[in-house]
């Protein structure tokens, strides 16, 4: 018998070229900040400083919004849709050409496995640009009136879990519909957005159509509250989403919010068990569980609960946790020290509340932010780990006896972003999809995304939809 060990297979970082410091991308050029302060961005897998970026101040935000306004009035809104589409196609193609660079940079800055940035984040981001490029000259047929108009300047604030992909979800539809944008990437993951700025230059995108102002919460607040912004689009925590909703209330600004989730992944006794186990793993351990639509509550029908749990534990034993740049890594680093502290805190609370904690034996690197794949059994709806979004590789396992009980438990949350149903019975899939209060219901799969499919939440998971025809509505009015 052979002892099978994968040799290290690290992706080379030679393909990326990180400057020691970056300015802000305003009006088509990288500029020094007017009143912003520099801060450092680190590789969460090693805690090494990658480079210095700027936390844009109010004057920086103002300058970017003005540039976006000029571009909107002077150029972008005057271009026919087919011309806007050409720029979007060009951006999409450059993203594909520079896919490896984008993937490596994303993994360095975010900590996610290269397998995911290479196979999911970057191809999907390019797909969003391709998809929306196709819409640009067909908006009259999208169902929003014969001649729908852009809102104007969109202020967009995105999270750190899928930095480039969330950028694409925001920028592509805004541009296709004729808006210009000021985008603030997350504090801990600004680098792919800055590379995207370079791509905009390479694509000869008119100056001011895309502006990128890096920074943390204060910069985001300055952007969202700026008078010159017509439309606010935010993806992030429900807490910040509520603050944004309060700040835009009573103004002319439109807002779409894509917030938290606590998705139920429901496995029935007639499920394809092996694939359900894969789906559970993909649901909660994909991207270290830093996924707003993660399947963080596993609902198992009691008659198969033990069988599924045994399979799941065996499968978790095979997960490869470690160097995100290694092509064989399944679970990478937690994005920041703050997020790691939050995951630890909620996990400790789970244990204190009486749930049973289990993790496979796995060695974690000494440096960097790491948390082992973890599951809690004996969880009830009353436990905080079953109610609050952990946003980490932590799965709460609950059981149910009947389909009605599954629906009741699945819907018993302030969130409603996504849900999963595992059964070989087609009629039950349709019945469940009808009853579940969630923006996306996946059947016999989980965490699958496509630019043609609208994505968004019920209840505290947000307002509006992104992607598909429905997503255009966020950037158009009749």
């Amino acid at each position: 018998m052979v002892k099978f060990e994968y040799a290290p297979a690290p992706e080379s970082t030679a393909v990326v070229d990180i400057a020691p410091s970056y300015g802000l991308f305003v009006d088509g050029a990288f500029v020094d900040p007017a009143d912003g302060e520099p801060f450092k961005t680190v590789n969460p897998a090693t805690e090494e400083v990658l480079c210095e970026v700027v936390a844009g101040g109010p004057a920086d935000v103002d300058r970017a919004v003005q540039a976006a306004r000029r571009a909107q009035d002077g150029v972008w809104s005057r271009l026919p849709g087919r011309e806007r589409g050409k720029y979007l196609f060009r951006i999409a193609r450059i993203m594909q050409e520079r896919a490896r660079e984008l993937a490596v940079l994303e993994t360095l800055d975010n900590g996610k496995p290269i397998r995911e940035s290479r196979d999911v984040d970057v191809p999907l981001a390019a797909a969003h640009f391709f998809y929306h490029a196709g819409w640009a000259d067909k908006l009259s047929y999208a169902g929003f009136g014969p001649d729908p108009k852009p809102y104007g300047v969109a202020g967009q604030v995105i999270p750190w879990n899928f930095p480039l992909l969330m950028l694409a979800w925001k920028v592509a539809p805004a541009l296709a519909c004729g808006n210009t944008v000021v985008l603030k990437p997350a504090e801990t993951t600004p680098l792919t957005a800055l590379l995207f700025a370079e791509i905009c230059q390479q694509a000869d995108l008119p100056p001011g159509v895309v502006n990128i102002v890096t920074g943390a919460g204060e910069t985001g607040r300055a952007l969202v509250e700026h008078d010159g912004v017509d439309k606010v689009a935010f993806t992030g925590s429900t807490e910040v989403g509520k603050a944004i909703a309060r700040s835009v209330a009573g103004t002319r600004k439109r807002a779409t919010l894509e917030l938290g989730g606590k998705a139920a992944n429901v496995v029935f006794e007639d499920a394809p068990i092996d694939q359900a186990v894969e789906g559970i793993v993909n649901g909660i351990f994909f991207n270290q569980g830093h996924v707003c639509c993660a399947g963080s509550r596993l609902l198992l029908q009691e008659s198969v609960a033990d069988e599924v749990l045994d399979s799941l534990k065996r499968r978790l034993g095979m997960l490869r946790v470690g160097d995100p740049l290694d092509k064989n890594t399944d679970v990478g680093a937690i994005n920041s020290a703050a997020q790691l502290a939050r995951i630890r805190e909620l996990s400790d609370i789970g244990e204190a509340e009486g749930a049973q904690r289990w993790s496979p034996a796995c060695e974690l690197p000494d440096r960097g932010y790491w948390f082992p794949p973890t599951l809690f059994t004996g969880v009830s709806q009353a436990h905080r780990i079953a109610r609050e979004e952990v946003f980490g590789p932590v799965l709460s396992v609950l059981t149910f006896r009947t389909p009605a009980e599954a629906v009741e438990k699945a819907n018993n949350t302030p969130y409603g972003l996504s849900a999963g149903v595992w059964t070989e019975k087609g009629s039950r899939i349709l019945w469940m999809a009808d009853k579940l209060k969630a923006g996306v219901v996946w059947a016999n799969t989980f965490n699958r995304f496509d630019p043609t499919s609208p994505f968004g939440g019920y209840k505290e998971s947000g307002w509006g939809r992104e992607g598909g025809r429905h997503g255009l509505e966020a950037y158009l009015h009749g």
Partner: protein
Amino acid sequence: MTSEPAGARSPALETVTSSVTASESALRRFLHGLPGVDQVGAEARAATLASRSVKADAKRQLIDLAISCIDLTTLEGADTPGKVRGLCAKGRRPEPDDSSCPQVAAICIYGDLVPVAVEELRGTGINVAAVATAFPSGRASLAVKLQDTRDAVAAGADEIDMVIDRGAFLSGRYGQVLDEVRQVKAACGPAHLKVILETGELATYDNVRRASWLAMLGGADFIKTSTGKISPAATLPVALVMLEAVRDFRAATGSQVGFKPAGGIRTAKDALKHFVLVHETCGDDWLDPAYYRLGASSLLNDLLLQRQRMATGRYAGRDYVTVD
């Protein structure tokens, strides 16, 4: 060189087997009660595992393992004693000027050529595997199939590769398939039995899972994907489903059945992907010629080319491996 596969039947195995095969309807209920296989999910899982990167020492070790797991095969109407002798020589010394290169696990041939191979392989530890039971179609009477098996065993075959009756399986006559496997197993005597499902004709992964269990309940020492005469053959998702079956069968009965993908595995890269599947699906217990075989002919030379490259850092030309 091969250790003994699945020894005496365990009590747990007897209990499971006797309860689920008590009647035609019990058997049907059992097979249809196995969890379904979601096609999209199984194919996605296989594709993810196929993207694993195997390098350096791991690759070197697995290439040698792959060579030692090969059932070096020729199954042509045009096969002659000379062809079989050549294949046997190749199997004994795949790399004529490198004695560190392992020999293959078995030579797989038609039954009438068994005496030639037995003669050539005496004392080498390489097994002689014969296809039997009206291979590849399986379209003959049970009496003919059993005689085919007995002839090969009598001629000295160490292993018998039988085909199931796909017609009977697809029309739901599971009891008949089970009975054939059992009778062929009995006719094998000391020879090990590999049961070929011919997954390319079974059409669905649900069928592949059911047929795998059926073969194992019938006493298979190995389950094997394909004859090599039908395409598709040993695809990665099919291998995944069959590996899940041998894994689950061991969990249920304590009895470890081997797995042999055959057909369409032509490159070292293909073979490595199959090993990744084994490692991540049922574990390293199966990474042994006693429980894992690769049915192949052209694969061996690609493995040798890769092996040379690992040693020298350069690719050698086709003329630096032997053709037999």
